[in-house]
């Protein structure tokens, strides 16, 4: 306990740190870059942009995805936009303001130097994406349009209708495919990473399983980069795609990479409420809708008139009432918790009374339906397809759902984990969002890491290995990892119990949602910590994995992922229990202000909690957070 972690933050004033660091890092000259092999796992925004950029620089990159194509990663589903400090609207934005908003939005639990660097490179991302042909929204004069997002009072969000993630990913994917054609990047599709391979304490490769043929393969390199996304699917129902999982990050954790702040999860306020117990996932409606939609519930819990017939005086616009300054644009954690409060009071809407209204009628009256369609047309269509209700005519029903995980693999300023040679980027790391991520900042961070940070910081590590060959895949470190993967496959295929993997996943999800979701209490977390191991035991005893290992076998794939979710869920609850304060998305009922807002305990918890794996339980290490440029205050959006 209490080893202090060194984030290797560069010296100097905040605004100069990244510049100074780039100057002091070791460089690899262009002719030498081609002597290096780098593995990138994942082809979302972070992975695709990192692999493409390293390919352009001259490294030889092997990139892996479990999808059939690199273009399918879940970054593609991001709707609303991407932040940058361009100040194109002349409304007072700046790098420092984006930095400040992000630190404050994260409830003062992120690292100043990383966040400042993120704000600095945000502008370059927009330039890069525009040059790649990302069709951002434009003004009639041809310049880029912006919208506002939660947690900010400036318009700094760039967008491409409601499909910004898709368009940015296509940009990164096309850059990646250009390098595939050039021969600098080798693409491995339908390949799931199942082990990180270490030799003499550093990462030297990975072991994958070919999902179509079942072949278990070893791949070696000078360095390994994980860009494998977040772990919201631990809740079973989340806005994440069906395949999203924590296995790559968890396997790295078990090989010595510390896992930071696992309890920091984000519950997104605007999702479509579930309609029945067979629901496979929850669908997000972009936060950008809160620009023009007003959130309300009836004042009377017994209200049974249709929304349109309820007069203004019988409506409670609870966010506008409680937070006049930010109104419907309060940060996600605040919006989610308030929606839960009114639903818990019995004032929810819809047949199951499990949602709140998001109402566009005022905006349609003010701007016209055409303008609203221009801004949100595809979201409205998606909503109507799912619910069979027309949001132009009646308000949307929304409710919070697990969406993003701020926690992840601990990384230093260079984005290197505690295992030398193993890097983590994008949602897979923990670095920039503190205890709560602001809207339109995930795309920014994924692309910042992939295009503008990792390709340079990795050189500092690689420089020391010049003129060395990667460890051969015939080395015993690889044969041990290959054996472990094959043994696990055998073990799953011998499971001939009575229940499906999905059944266990759903049950696990319920425990985590009930006790480590929007609200956490010591009592509930302790309950979860006894229920999770019990369910896990049942899982290993009673799960059924049919079929064979030499072909596509979705049950087999899911079994390994759910097994890792079990271990991760336990760590989440441990961390949530240990952090006896409320901050951002982590809300402990024991720690709130009189008005029910999250109450931090800066004296005891201004640190990152990073856990080391151990067979007999995790060990907690801390990274103290030092704030030299902002003053810690109780967040206020009133």
């Amino acid at each position, binding site marked *: 306990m209490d080893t202090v972690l060194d984030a290797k933050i560069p010296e100097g004033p905040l605004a100069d740190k990244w510049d100074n660091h780039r100057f002091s890092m070791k460089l690899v000259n262009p002719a030498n870059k081609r002597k290096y092999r780098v593995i990138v796992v994942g082809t979302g925004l972070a992975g695709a942009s990192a692999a493409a*950029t390293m390919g*352009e620089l001259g490294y030889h990159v092997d990139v892996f995805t479990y*999808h*059939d*194509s690199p273009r*399918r990663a*879940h970054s*593609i*589903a991001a709707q609303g936009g991407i932040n940058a400090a*361009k100040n194109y609207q002349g409304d007072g934005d700046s790098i420092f303001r984006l930095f400040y908003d992000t630190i404050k939005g994260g409830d003062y639990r992120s690292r100043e130097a990383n966040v400042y660097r993120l704000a600095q490179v945000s502008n*370059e991302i*927009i*330039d*890069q994406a*525009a*040059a*790649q*042909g990302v*069709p*951002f929204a*434009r003004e*009639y*004069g*041809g310049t*880029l349009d912006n919208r506002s997002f939660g947690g900010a009072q400036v318009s700094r969000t760039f967008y491409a*209708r409601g*499909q910004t993630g*898709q*368009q940015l990913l*296509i940009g990164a*994917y*096309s*850059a990646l*495919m*250009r390098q595939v054609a050039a021969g600098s990047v080798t*693409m491995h599709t339908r390949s799931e990473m199942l082990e990180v391979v270490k030799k003499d304490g550093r990462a030297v490769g990975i072991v994958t399983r070919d999902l*179509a043929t079942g072949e278990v393969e070893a791949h070696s390199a000078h360095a390994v980069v994980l860009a494998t996304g977040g772990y919201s699917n631990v809740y079973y129902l989340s806005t994440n*795609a*069906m395949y999203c999982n924590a296995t790559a990050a968890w396997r790295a954790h078990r090989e010595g990479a510390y896992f930071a702040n696992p309890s920091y999860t984000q519950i997104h306020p605007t999702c479509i409420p579930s*309609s*029945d117990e*067979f*629901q*496979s996932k929850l*669908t*997000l409606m972009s936060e950008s809708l809160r620009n023009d939609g007003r959130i309300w519930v009836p004042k009377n819990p017994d209200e049974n008139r249709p929304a349109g017939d309820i007069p203004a005086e019988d409506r409670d616009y609870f966010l506008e009432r409680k937070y006049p300054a930010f109104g419907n644009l309060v940060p996600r954690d605040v919006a989610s918790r308030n929606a839960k409060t009114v639903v818990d009071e019995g004032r929810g809407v819809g047949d199951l009374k499990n949602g709140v209204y998001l109402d566009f009628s005022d905006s349609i009256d003010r701007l016209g339906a055409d303008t609203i369609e221009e801004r949100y047309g595809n979201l409205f269509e998606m909503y109507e*397809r*799912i619910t*069979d209700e027309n949001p132009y005519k009646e308000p949307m029903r929304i409710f919070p759902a697990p969406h993003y995980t701020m926690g992840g693999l601990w990384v230093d300023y260079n984005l290197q984990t505690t295992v030398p040679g193993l890097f983590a980027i994008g949602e897979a790391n923990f670095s920039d969002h503190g205890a709560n991520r602001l809207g339109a900042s995930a795309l920014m961070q994924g692309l910042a890491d992939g295009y*503008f940070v990792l390709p340079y910081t990795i050189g500092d590590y690689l420089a020391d290995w010049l003129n060395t060959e990667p460890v051969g895949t015939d080395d015993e470190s690889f044969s041990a990892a290959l054996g472990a993967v094959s043994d696990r496959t055998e073990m799953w295929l011998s499971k001939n119990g009575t229940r*499906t993997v*999905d059944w266990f996943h759903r049950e696990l999800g319920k425990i985590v949602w009930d006790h480590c979701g929007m609200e956490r209490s010591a009592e509930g977390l302790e309950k979860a910590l006894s229920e999770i191991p019990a369910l896990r035991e049942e899982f290993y005893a009673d799960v*059924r994995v*049919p*079929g064979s290992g030499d*072909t*596509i*076998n*979705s*049950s087999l794939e899911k079994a390994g992922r759910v097994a890792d979710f079990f271990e991760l869920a336990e760590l989440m609850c441990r961390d949530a229990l240990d952090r006896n304060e409320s901050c951002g998305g982590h809300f402990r009922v024991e720690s709130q202000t009189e008005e029910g807002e999250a109450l931090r305990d800066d004296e005891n918890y201004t640190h990152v909690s990073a856990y080391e794996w151990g067979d007999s339980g995790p060990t907690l290490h801390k990274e103290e957070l030092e704030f030299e440029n902002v003053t810690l205050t109780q967040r206020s959006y009133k």
Partner: protein
Amino acid sequence: MKVTLRIWRQPGPEADGGFEEHDVDGINEEMSFLEMMDILNDRLVEGGGEPIEFESDCREGICGTCNLVIDGVPHGPQLGTATCQLHMRKFSDGARITVEPWRAAGFPMIKDLIVDRTHLDDIVAAGGYISVNTGSAPDANLMPVAKSVADTAFDAAACIGCGACVAACPNGAAHLFTAAKVAHLNLLPQGQPERYRRVEAMVEEMDQWFGSCTNHGECETACPQSISIDFIAMMNRDYVKSKFKNRRLLSQTN
């Protein structure tokens, strides 16, 4: 409600395939089509069988992973809708529904309802990009783009790469996919320097794997993003132009 599925099963690329029939009862119309399939698979596994393998990921209609031919139509009966966004309310109680994989020579079979769509990526690798290395871009507002141009480019860029256009085409052609990719970049000012090189390379890569376009228009109807076949006309025009613009002397080798 209850439906009867007549569903394609094929253990592997070389194995024979065939239809299997399954009754699925106890479902409700709020469910998505794929949730109904999930329930069927749960029951198959609990009953000692193997699940029917199919692909789907985001279930929001954007990632392009899901790909079922439902009653002979790629993505099923609802216009402009991917399989994962199709709901059971579009079917009547007691319906008998046929479910098949994408069938096209360019999409080799893998298992059950899963096919290999890698050749779509090959078309993109051939030229579906703007060559701009990271860090070399000018300020984004230095190159104004007319709103109408950005909007039309977006209409093409909305392609989710699912391959329904290929599955719908009697010739197994990938013209709508390729045209959407070409038009997205060829319309924008940023895409002009490589415009004719791009269209030539992409069309010729496409021709290696997929059939010819004979203007049936089935692709547009099947497209979950309702991408217009006007883009195919634009691609063909650019391709013809490229043959003049890219003319090389016989002694040039590349």
